[in-house]
């Protein structure tokens, strides 16, 4: 059951300061409304994972590991590999993260990232079939939040994409008895698009790109838009108990298109 | 500047009621120069004040309301009483007349145990704290026998009737003692169990047939005949 979330209350003077700054087009951490925090990206950190990447977005820090195994295809897509995205809000990332099964926030996060990758067809799943209808590659994308300072979605999305781009696909031999053996050789995981998400929060009629945690607590709503390399929208999620005006949503698209191209150029084009 | 609805018009939440220089009364709100309804109900226009009389809704305690409640818990300060509202009411020890005693739980449950039915009055409530009730006053206090039946709170005025016409008629015809709690809890007691049963059925008729016309007459006929008279069975 989904229950009204209770944001950490901001000190009154802090929210007042935030509003005053916003009125003059500035943010509490000195950024412009449309500026992202600094992004750092590191690929291939976990040797035992087929792919991995770590992203920092200001103080937000996310690690993604990709594991690839042989397994059964979904019955409705017998000739495609399987992609699954899971997110763990690890207790070390924030004092309010509790150990336990995934809650609605981590499920939502994983599903937004999943949607962006799936709908952009970034991973060519048709190339991941071993025995049609029987055996395919299963690509597990596990998102690990290490430090939470807002906008977990974008940090996770960038890390997931980087880890997939870097992932090696283990070559296997399938024996007569159906036994799967790794040959020890690898090829590249076929990643053919670069979906980039951009999250915009609304506070008091103003649109803010890449909200930090304080801003997220202040914002009633945010929206994540993911764009393909051809600037097509492939995933949207409005999140939070607030609303957007129609023209704001169209504005968000324009912001997302511009920001996603920048990030793609800087980090994801080979 | 215009009123957009007729007086007593049935309106739904979000329906614009007036545009321009008006005041949002009960169950309506103002946004960008317009007054909108918050509830399903009937529009009321009183000069510049536009409000809505709800047809459905939770009971919200108001100071002075007569309420019928049930004791659900006991703590050091007094009794917790379910009054069919979003908040449990508190009956403080100080509001129980002539009972000087130390705040010992054991002693409190001996006065009113859990499950006890109380006829009480709301003496304080402001939504930030639980409502406070009293049993000091004529007709208030613990009841010893009888039954309590529920009625949708917004239908309570229907059971009371115009200037009390319906409820006095029911009392007269049945000879029962009836306490109509504003909270939609009706206490009924009488010597004759059959009469009590008739009153219960009459309250149920109000609940189920609040949307029909001639309800008072029908209930009167029902109580007189000792059975329900359907409209179509009436003598020509």
């Amino acid at each position: 059951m989904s229950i009204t979330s209770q944001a950490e209350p901001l000190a009154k003077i802090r929210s007042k300061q935030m509003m005053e700054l916003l009125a003059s087009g500035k943010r509490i951490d000195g950024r412009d409304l449309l500026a992202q925090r600094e992004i750092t990206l590191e690929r291939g950190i976990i040797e035992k994972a087929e792919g991995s990447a770590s992203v920092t977005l200001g103080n937000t820090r996310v690690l993604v590991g990709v594991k690839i195994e042989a397994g059964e295809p979904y019955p409705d897509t017998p000739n495609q590999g399987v992609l699954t995205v899971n997110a763990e809000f690890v207790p070390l990332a924030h004092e309010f993260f509790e150990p336990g099964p995934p809650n609605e926030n981590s499920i939502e996060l994983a599903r937004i990232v999943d949607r962006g990758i799936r709908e952009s067809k970034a991973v060519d799943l048709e190339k991941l079939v071993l025995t049609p209808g029987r055996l395919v590659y299963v690509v597990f994308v596990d998102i690990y939040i290490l430090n939470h300072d807002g906008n977990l979605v974008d940090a996770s999305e960038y890390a997931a994409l980087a880890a997939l781009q870097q992932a090696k696909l283990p070559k296997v031999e399938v024996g007569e008895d159906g036994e799967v053996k790794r040959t020890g050789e690898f090829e590249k995981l076929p990643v053919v698009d670069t979906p980039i998400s951009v999250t915009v929060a609304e506070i008091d009629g103003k649109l803010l790109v890449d909200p930090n945690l304080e801003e997220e607590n202040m914002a009633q709503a945010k929206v994540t838009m993911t764009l393909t390399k051809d600037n097509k929208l492939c995933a949207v999620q409005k999140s939070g108990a607030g609303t957007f005006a129609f023209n704001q949503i169209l504005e968000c698209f324009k912001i997302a298109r511009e920001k996603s191209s920048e990030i793609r150029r800087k980090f994801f084009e080979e | 500047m215009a009123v957009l609805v007729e007086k007593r018009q049935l309106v739904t939440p979000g329906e614009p009621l007036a545009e321009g220089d008006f005041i949002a009364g009960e169950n309506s709100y103002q946004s960008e120069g317009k007054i909108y309804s918050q509830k399903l109900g009937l529009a009321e226009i009183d000069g510049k004040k536009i409000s809505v009389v709800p047809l459905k809704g939770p009971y919200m305690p108001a100071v002075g309301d007569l309420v019928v409640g049930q004791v659900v818990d006991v703590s050091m300060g007094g009794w917790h009483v379910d009054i069919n509202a979003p908040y449990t009411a508190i009956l403080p020890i100080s509001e129980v007349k002539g009972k000087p005693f130390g705040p010992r739980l054991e002693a409190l449950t001996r006065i009113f145990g859990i499950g006890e039915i109380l006829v009480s009055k709301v003496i304080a409530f402001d939504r930030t704290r639980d409502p406070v009730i009293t049993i000091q006053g004529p007709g208030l206090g613990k009841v010893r026998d009888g039954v309590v039946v529920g009625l949708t709170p917004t239908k309570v005025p229907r059971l009371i009737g115009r200037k009390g016409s319906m409820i006095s008629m029911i009392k007269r015809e049945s000879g029962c003692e009836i306490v109509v709690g504003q909270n939609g809890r009706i206490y009924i007691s009488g010597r004759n169990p059959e009469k009590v049963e008739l009153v219960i059925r009459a309250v149920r008729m109000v609940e189920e047939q609040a949307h029909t016309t001639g309800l008072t007459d029908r209930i009167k006929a029902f109580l007189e005949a000792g059975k329900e008279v359907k409209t179509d069975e009436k003598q020509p």
Partner: protein
Amino acid sequence: MKSSRKLIDENGLRVDGRRWDELRPVKMEVGLLANANGSSYIQQGKNKIMVAVYGPKEAHPKHLGNPDRAIIRCRFHMAPFSTEERKSPAPSRREVELSKIIREALEPAVFSEYYPRSMIDVFIEVLESDGGSRCAGTMAASLALADAGIPLRDLVAACAVGKVEGQIVLDLNDVEDKEGEADMPVAVIPALGRISLLQMDGQFTEEEFAEALELAQKGCRSLYEIQKQALKQRYLPEKEALEAEEKGGK
């Protein structure tokens, strides 16, 4: 994934005979569950969804209560028999996500500040599912809230728009949802003129996105009228009886 079936025929008609901008037949009712404070039922395409609202009531456990407003608990749940293959009754990840986004679509419409420390429960049960069940569920939930007499800024109207064979279409059914190229559920709060639910999967160009958003607004406007009718139909007799009684008393 895509079948060879044509989703739009040479006359521009969709698999169920609708034009691109046509809604499925829809039926809405309120006030049908005796125990609930408010309830509703919606039938849209094959969707059959029942909603019950309980509350506002004391928050349980008490520490859940918020000193400033009522909290809303929302559960979107699909019956095991609502889908082609039996669905496990345990909540799926999809249901967890939808419970959250539907709650967030409803919350901005509710004057929850009127009932601090209390709790409002919204239970959405999909008895049979078709395309657009989250939108139908959202609409029905707002009707059940209104039926419970909970103060609202407005009802919440919702519909999905999508792309089928390159064409932007309104109110996707199951097949169009599964085989089409894009699906975008949208909910609006008409009195505020704002969007309270927005999701999208598939692919849209900027022009298609703008067009789809426009079409969604149009769809929501039509559905909103049906929502209002459902409430009025149920409560008009009560209003008339009240008036007759008053006249009789004079």
